[in-house]
């Protein structure tokens, strides 16, 4: 048996395949076809202090090998997470990372603080990269200074392993990542969606209610992989993702320097994609005679620094 277990920035995972935030609800939706104790972990939908209503419809649109979404971080709020979802997820044996969002530094910090007392949370993923909200989200993550300030504020309130989820919509992602590192992040999550749009030529208006949205799916894999490749030099462990669809894609991210991978859009296409990818990785290790999956991390990337 090959060993698929990894330690991602202090989060122990039975395998390196996680459900990406916002694509797996709070685990219940797909539970009938994806046993939660068979995947590495689940990253919850972006969770804010109070419930958020999200953006007007239409919220998704298909594009070539990808999809746009502008959900706008609709979520039932922290209280619901703590009282309803976390207990249920614990009962399923799921490893839970909470994706945290806010409009202000204080809101982010408040969520982190409440979750700090929660043993059912394995780690936090700070979403500084959602392109679909006016305040918060990407507005923080495209600027080195505000990234630093936000990560620092959250770091002070939590002892949980802290991942910072980065936006690819920047000139220099490494610079943002370094700020996150210097402010105390334990790991990086790369990447969130790319800003894109579609226009309905019959109605002559944007397809999405929010005008622009975030592109995910196979179309963005080359950009996401290049981001992980560059981030490997920052020296923090990386949760890589963006367009991963089959196990071979996952291996590319590991070789580039990711310790684990997040799977989003592929789940919509093939609900069991995460299970298939974990199985594919295991078979690959066996075939190649590699004992531990962690031996692959950064193996193609001379610039990778041990995370």
């Amino acid at each position, binding site marked *: 048996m090959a060993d698929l277990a990894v330690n991602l920035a202090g989060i122990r995972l039975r395998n390196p395949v996680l459900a990406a935030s*916002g694509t797996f609800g709070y685990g219940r939706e797909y539970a009938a076809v994806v046993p939660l104790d068979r995947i590495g972990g689940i990253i919850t939908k972006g969770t804010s202090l109070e419930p958020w209503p999200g953006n007007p419809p239409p919220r998704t649109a298909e594009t070539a090998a990808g999809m746009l979404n502008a959900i706008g971080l609709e979520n039932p709020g922290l209280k619901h997470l703590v009282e309803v979802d976390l207990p249920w997820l614990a009962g399923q044996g799921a490893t839970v990372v909470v994706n945290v969002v806010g409009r202000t530094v204080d809101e982010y910090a408040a969520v982190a603080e409440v979750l700090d007392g929660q043993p059912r949370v394995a780690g936090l993923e700070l979403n500084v990269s959602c392109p679909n909200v006016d305040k918060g989200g990407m507005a923080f993550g495209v600027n080195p200074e505000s990234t630093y300030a936000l990560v620092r504020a959250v770091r002070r309130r939590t002892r949980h392993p802290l991942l910072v989820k980065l936006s690819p919509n920047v000139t220099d992602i490494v610079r943002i990542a370094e700020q996150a590192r210097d402010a105390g992040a334990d790991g990086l999550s790369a990447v969130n969606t790319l800003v894109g749009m579609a226009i309905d030529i019959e109605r002559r208006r944007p397809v999405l209610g929010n005008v622009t949205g975030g592109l995910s799916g196979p179309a963005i894999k080359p950009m996401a992989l290049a981001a992980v490749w560059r981030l490997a030099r920052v020296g923090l462990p990386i949760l890589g993702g963006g367009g991963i669809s089959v196990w071979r894609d996952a291996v590319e991210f590991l070789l580039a320097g990711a310790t684990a991978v997040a799977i989003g859009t592929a789940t919509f296409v093939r609900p069991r994609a995460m299970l298939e990818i974990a199985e594919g990785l295991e078979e690959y290790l066996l075939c190649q005679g590699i004992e531990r999956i962690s031996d692959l991390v950064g193996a193609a990337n001379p610039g990778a620094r041990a995370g």
Partner: protein
Amino acid sequence: MRLEGARVEENRLLAPEHRRMVLHAPDIATSAAPGQFVHLRVHDSLHPLLRRPFSVARRDVTAGTLTLIYRVVGEGTARLADRRPGDRMDVLGPLGRGFRMLPGKIPLLVGGGVGIAPLIFLAEEARRTGRQVELLAGARTAALLVGEEDLREFGVECCPATDDGSRGYRGPVTGLVAGRLDGRAVYASGPPAMLRQVQLLAESVPAQLCIEGVMACGVGACLGCSCRTRDGGRRLVCTDGPVFDAHEVSLDG
């Protein structure tokens, strides 16, 4: 909810651009209810990427089959039209919340175009439980009145309306609704304009609408298929619907 590797048993042309597909998917067939849908991976390729939702038009528990009636409108349905008997297709379902048949009211089913699909299933279930059923079916022209063949199998005749008057009433199917509401409960499925009209006409009687929405996951995980309610709230078409009470849902989005 199951994920089944279904076998295509039939995929034939019913009318211009309209096809009928029979899938062997016993688990889903057994558990499906009228108004529910399946989410299909039309092809094993990256294009089109996402699944496509289709109402269950019939099911046969003994044979373990599902019937879909679909219109070819774009890339996904074109690919679906290519599938041949014997091909395998990945089917997720049954999904969503279907029609709630109200006791004590004669069901009046109103279908527009290919929207008739879920009403066939509903009509069959109604007959099976010994109810009387009225079904009004609209289409652009006589050739596009699909589903009658199926309906006849269990003895339901539909009352047709065509835009060009080539069969039955000339005009929108909703033109047939007004005089027929008394003591009825309305179950409608069709294009948004038709559903809006039904919503207006049926203010005084119970009515349920099967609506469409753009879907990514189909299971409530992505929050993409959000629609508005009349009181300003939000519902998910895929899990709160696709069948909603007419007074609940807003159709202007």
